[in-house]
């Protein structure tokens, strides 16, 4: 067992499903390729830098980095660490050293589908989406969702709000308040892309009685009767796959994962999972029908969406 992988998280993992998936992935990879695995969690920009430094220093063979937070750092450190391979998930940096690889997701394809569902289901003519922080990356959720809504219900309003505050990616308190506020303003279907904050939104849904969409993993059982559908982002499998390719010695790997590659999905598309997912969408076959249509057209390319991340 001479291989050594390190997973550096940009933020505290805590209840952040996305980061949890990353950890799941690295552990699976450890199993699969017989490597020792460590996780370094970061809380601040300085700690991210120090952790990546440390990973190199401790002699990691592969360093897995989740999120765009690591761009500068990788640019700085990768060239000085030729015998370490870096895998950045969710982000690709241009003109990268060849020991840097990346895997990105086309979240907007899945959020588009959720938007379609919201548009079809909303009765108040107003839906909402709450994101952790007003950053381009999260527009892949919010904008895709809004697009989807408009595609089926042109005059439905989409209320977009952000958690913000001290720690936007782990603040259920503020997330909850935002959801409550949006519902008070008339939104009956709300997408929650607040990672650590999602629980707060679920609580709000329970107390105020509105419906939510969520991301990353199936939360439906935690709040039965309130969660409609879930955007699935298969970070874990992506990590395992990418690490495999790296170990095969491929250079400059760039993975882009969407509906087509199965890197992105929603429960509505997953016949097998849907059955016992306890998600509300299961009760709306006609909506599922429509969603699968749209998904198909995205996959075969007849419907083209562009990446909101670089809009604006």
């Amino acid at each position, binding site marked *: 067992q001479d291989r050594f992988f390190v997973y550096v998280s940009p933020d505290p993992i805590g209840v952040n499903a996305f980061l949890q998936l990353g950890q799941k992935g690295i552990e699976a990879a450890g199993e699969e390729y017989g490597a020792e695995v460590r996780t370094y969690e970061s809380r*601040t*920009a300085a700690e991210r830098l*120090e952790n990546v*430094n440390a990973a190199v220093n401790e002699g990691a063979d592969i360093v897995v980095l989740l999120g765009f937070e690591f*761009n500068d750092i990788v640019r700085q450190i990768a060239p000085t660490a030729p015998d370490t391979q870096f895998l950045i998930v969710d982000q690709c940096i241009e003109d990268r050293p060849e020991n840097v690889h990346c895997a990105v997701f086309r979240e907007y394809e899945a959020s588009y589908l959720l938007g379609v569902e919201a548009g079809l289901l909303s009765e108040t003519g107003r839906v909402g989406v709450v994101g952790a922080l007003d950053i*381009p990356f999260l527009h892949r959720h919010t904008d895709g969702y809004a697009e989807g809504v408009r595609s089926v219900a042109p005059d439905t309003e989409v209320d977009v709000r952000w958690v913000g505050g001290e720690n936007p990616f782990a603040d259920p308190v503020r997330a909850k308040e935002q959801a409550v506020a949006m519902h008070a303003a008339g939104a009956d279907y709300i997408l929650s892309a607040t990672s650590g904050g999602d629980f707060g939104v679920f609580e709000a849904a329970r107390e105020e009685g509105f419906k939510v969409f969520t991301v990353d993993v199936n939360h439906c059982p935690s709040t039965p009767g309130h969660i409609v559908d879930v955007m699935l982002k298969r970070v874990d499998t992506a990590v395992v796959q990418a690490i495999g390719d790296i170990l095969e010695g491929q250079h400059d790997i760039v993975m882009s994962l969407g509906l087509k590659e199965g890197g992105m999905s929603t429960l509505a598309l997953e016949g097998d999972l849907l059955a016992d997912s306890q998600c509300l969408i299961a009760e709306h076959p006609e909506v599922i029908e429509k969603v699968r249509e749209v998904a198909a057209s995205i996959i075969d390319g007849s419907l083209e969406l562009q990446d909101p991340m*670089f809009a604006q």
Partner: protein
Amino acid sequence: MRKHIYRTLLAGDLLSWLGVAGAILAVILVLMLMVGAPVGEALQGFWSGAFGGRRYAYLMTTLSRAAIIIGMAVSVLLSFRAGLFNIGGEGQLVAGGLVAALTAILLPGPPLLVLAVSVLAAMLAGALWALLAGVLQLYVGVPLLVGSLLLNYPARYIASYLVAHPFRDVPSGMLQSHLVPQETWLPYFPGTRLDIGILFIAAASIFAVIYSHATLHGYHARLNGLSPDFARAVGLPVKKLALQTLAMSGAIAGLVGAIAVFGIHHRYIDGMLVQPLYAWTGIIAVLLVGMIPWAVPLSGFFFAAVETGAAGMERAAAVPKEIALVIQAVIILFVASRVSGALSVSAERKGADDA
């Protein structure tokens, strides 16, 4: 402030100091055992995490952290000695870092000039932010303690807004400014990842020592700190002294912000100067040594080592690195509760009257 040392040594004879050390170690040990950490490896990891690493990589990390902490410590030191309880270092630090980054990004011209101007602009920004708190206290009556602290939040959020909207590096996908021109980055010491920013901090520390002990302004500022009524009665320009001292504090905090930008992150990243609690660590570094200027760099380095060491301890023995905060706090409680006092007015109350 040498008096403090005397008083400390008198207050606690060697024995009771050993007692203090024992108590501190006991607390740390309990916390380690709670997570069932192998103590040996933990200490080993702590040591290498703070001072070791390949080609002393970790020591360099410690030094680069220490630079920031010491800088902030020196900044508050000047205020505290003048009896100004300015705990708004964070806001002044942010103001400096932000202005440094934006100036360097927007200002055309030869790199060295841009660097120089940006650093000066940062110091000016820090000074102004500190002065704002001073004006609130002197002319409006808002206690400095509260005013300076509350001003941290607007600074933080204004900076956040500026890098989130007008000056955001959109493609990067983060709340951060664009990179400052590569030519303005502070160079690393050859063969290390430690930038030369620490030299600026060393200069600032030396300045603080000389200023505090050997200059008329430092002397008057301190008298004002020890007894404002006295300073007024002997005709010292107390308001001017206070404002000038605050400006100096703020300028140094601003300088630190600039160093963090040009030396470490090369841009302004939202929260990069707030989340690591640099300002607070600076404050306790000063309190630990009872505001003795020459000792401040030592305690600053010590606290930096505690933090990086804790990170090493986490890597080696899975002891959560947050233990660093606990250690720092416990040390302050035990040590500073013997050294401190000249800090607040309680100093004057000490001299019991005779008649």
